[in-house]
């Protein structure tokens, strides 16, 4: 679109709200002067495994002064499939491809032009980003059969976008409410959904590690996407099942709610997972946001 041509002109006679009134309105509401995104990540091999097959990626952009741009935070967790030969490769390629796609289709256009015109819907970009990762890994000829979970979270403006495959998780903590935004694509979750397993049985289930969906596995891939408007402030957690598979949600919630620096929270999450056995690689991305 040609902005020059379509930029509307205003014929103004008298404003509805005077400058004076406006100042009063603005000062009456106390909001943080600058929206901020603070992020910390930990990606630990754990206590048992030889190799770290998890990958994580964070990309934050903040602007200042006259240059105002929407807050932008991109967070990726991928857990390469255990037992497969190239699990670590799969998680690395998936994180890189998904991030590259999102930066190309959202972040770079934002830098180039602040116009929203002709822009691909963000949710579709999130979905195609996971598909791009899938295409990069999926090889019908190969017998290596590598795969990965992939959870991608994007904070743009005041909205959270998530695209997700597998059993890594995205949690949102806001107003003392802690909830998983994503659904696990795992056998154990499916059996609970259809009522074949109680939560207690599930906790001790033998095949907790079996995924029903993973990036790079089958030709067709179904991707879950979520969007929601973020509250004025809160925290976000992306993690692999090395954390959420061994530490119960209420325990994670307690740690996430602590009013301490994010570094401490991240360390505590990893330490708790280690105490629970550290059987798998442990990844945690902790984000604090305020608008």
């Amino acid at each position, binding site marked *: 679109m040609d902005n020059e041509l379509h930029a509307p002109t205003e*014929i103004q006679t*008298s404003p509805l709200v005077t400058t004076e009134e406006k100042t009063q309105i603005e000062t009456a509401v106390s909001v943080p002067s600058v929206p901020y995104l603070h992020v910390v990540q930990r990606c630990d091999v754990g206590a048992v495994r030889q190799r770290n097959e998890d990958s994580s990626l964070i990309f934050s952009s903040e602007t200042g002064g006259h240059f105002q741009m929407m807050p932008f935070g991109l967070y990726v967790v991928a857990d390469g499939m255990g037992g497969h030969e190239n699990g670590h490769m799969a998680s690395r390629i998936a994180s890189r491809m998904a991030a590259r796609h999102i930066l190309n289709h959202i972040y770079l256009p934002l830098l180039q032009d602040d116009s929203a015109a002709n822009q691909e819907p963000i949710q579709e970009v999130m979905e195609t980003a996971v598909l791009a990762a899938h295409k990069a890994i999926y090889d019908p000829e190969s017998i290596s059969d590598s795969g990965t979970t992939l959870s991608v979270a994007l904070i743009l403006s005041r*909205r959270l976008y998530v695209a997700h495959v597998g059993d890594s998780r995205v949690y949102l903590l806001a107003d003392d409410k802690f909830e998983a935004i994503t659904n696990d694509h795992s056998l154990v979750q499916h059996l609970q959904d259809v009522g074949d397993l109680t939560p207690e049985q599930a906790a001790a289930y033998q095949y907790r590690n079996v995924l029903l969906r993973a990036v790079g596995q089958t030709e067709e891939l179904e991707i879950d996407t979520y969007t929601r408007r973020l509250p004025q402030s809160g925290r976000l957690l992306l993690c692999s099942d090395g954390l959420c598979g061994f530490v119960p949600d209420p325990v994670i919630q307690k740690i996430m709610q602590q009013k301490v620096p994010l570094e401490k929270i991240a360390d505590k999450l990893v330490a708790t997972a280690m105490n629970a056995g550290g059987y798998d690689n442990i990844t945690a991305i902790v984000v604090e946001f305020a608008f």
Partner: protein
Amino acid sequence: MGRLTTRQLSRKRDRQNRFNPRAELQPGDMLQERYRVVGMLGIGGMSSVYQARDMRFPTVTKLCAVKEMVIATSDPQLRQLTIKSFEREASMLAMLDHPAIPDVSDYFTEGNRSYLVQELIRGKNLQEWLEENDTLVDQDLALDWALQVCEALAYLHNQKPQPIVFRDLKPSNIMLDQYNRIRLIDFGIAKIFEAEENRGTMIGTEGYSPPEQYRGEATPAVDVYALGATLHHLMTRQDPRLEPPFTFGERPIRAVNPTISPALEAIVMRCLSYNPNDRFPDATALKEALELITQTSPSRVEIEQLVAPPTAVSAPTGHHPTITAVTTAIQVGATKAEAIWAFRCEDEIRSKPTIMSGRVFVGAYDNNLYAVSSDKGEFLWKYPTLDGIASTPCIYDDLVLITSSDRHLYAIRQHDGDIKWRFPTDGAIYSSPSVRFDHVFFGSDDGYFYAVNAKRGKLAWKTNAYSPIRSSPFLTEERVYFGTEGGYIYCLEISTGKTKWHTQAKRAITSSPIVADDIVFVGSLDATVYALDAGSGWAIWRFRARRPIISSPLVHEGVVYIGSSDNNLYAIDMDTGRQVWVYEAGGQIASSPAIWNDAIYFGSADGNIYSLTLKRGELRWRFETEGRVIGAPTIVDGVVYVGSTDHNLYALPA
């Protein structure tokens, strides 16, 4: 061809005289050593028509008409272009073969003039006929002439690869030859010769031309309008060149000429619709409608179908309404819904009613804003605007605010229907008004979005959106959101009208946006439902229907409900943009849905008002009206108030 004022004409002639001292051809003058001028037949702004004798036939007097057009430009390149276009059009006209269209036998350019040689039609044109007769053209004669003109226009409109548009149909261009047959003369070919500077001179003088022609558009619908205007002139003897432009709706034909049937009047008025999409698309469609009323006496319903335009907006038929309130039970559809009452207007209701303090307010295409008691459907008062009302009334203090396609916003007193003030714009208004901070917000077909002081009716600000605005605005504390026919979604600052952002869809946004959870939801004629970030305009997701969307979305507990012309009502998850359920009605859904308790309500072009369960979209009941239901229902205290194009406003139990 452009009509000019006499002063402009004489100035132009002066210019031409300077350019070429021999301004007019004189009897005896020879062209191409073949055509000897006998005399002048007519003179227009940029052209003259001479009677000439073809000297190729020296022993007999074979007369022809020679149309002379002046190449106004002195720029050699432009001149070359003009001649090329002329030759192209002349060749095209020479290929036509229809008894009502004079044969073109030759063309040439001499100096700064181009000439077209045509068959000479003997007889008189309908302008002369009007001057010589003082009788009104009756139904039979009007139909006869109309069908003959249509026949010729249909031939032109069906030309391949592109339809030919006559462009300048009016009584003086329609000849009655010596055998009393209709012939079309003077094609708009002269348009090529009009310099840029003269284009504006048409406005206000060309009573037969439709509004879009002033914007340079030439589609078959242009000829349909011009034929409608010509017929209106012939049937009423009211010269449209002496009236304000596009005001045929104010001069009902049957009020002057009762020999004309309501069906013919309705057909002519549809030809005269302001919006070209509301007219018969071309002469073939018009001809079919005319033939139907020649052969049969159609029922009222058939007439309505005949004149029903394809989209949501049309010109009013100009009937003078009488009010009848139907209080008995009315015909009920397949399942058991029965009306509490029905109130009959004199024309279609295509808008949503507003209910306040026991009064139902609704605008109709009979130009009136009605106030009816909400319990019994009894007439309280009506306020006549000057054109059809397609918008939903809005309440402000003791006022009802309503916009009309007569270009005005009205503030009417709720209790007695008296006008308090009105505010003019330069275009028909289909956008419904909304009030916030004591100001009324709405868009107009003139391309501006307005903020008007609701107490006094004075402009606060207006913002140019560069294309007609038919979408109704959504207002928040700080912002205004609306769509345009040009396909943009705008977000303005409510206090100043300054643009915060605008985002483009692929086609028009007639649907009215709604904002929930900081997302703007809106449908487009590009068959897509858009979810945009309200702060930035960035698309969050889009949902594709199969056909265009006019219906406005409704958001309820995380679900977006919207209708489409693919006959479906969609329930879409607000966060993911995924379909929750879909219900297929029997016709297009232009109506916007309304919710009451656990049910959703909407109308369809199949004539039904539907009630579905909210959770799963299962049919609860439907109520059958006798016309398409385009307007949205309003539900108050368990009563569904909804209008239909069968002229009735219904009150149904939810």
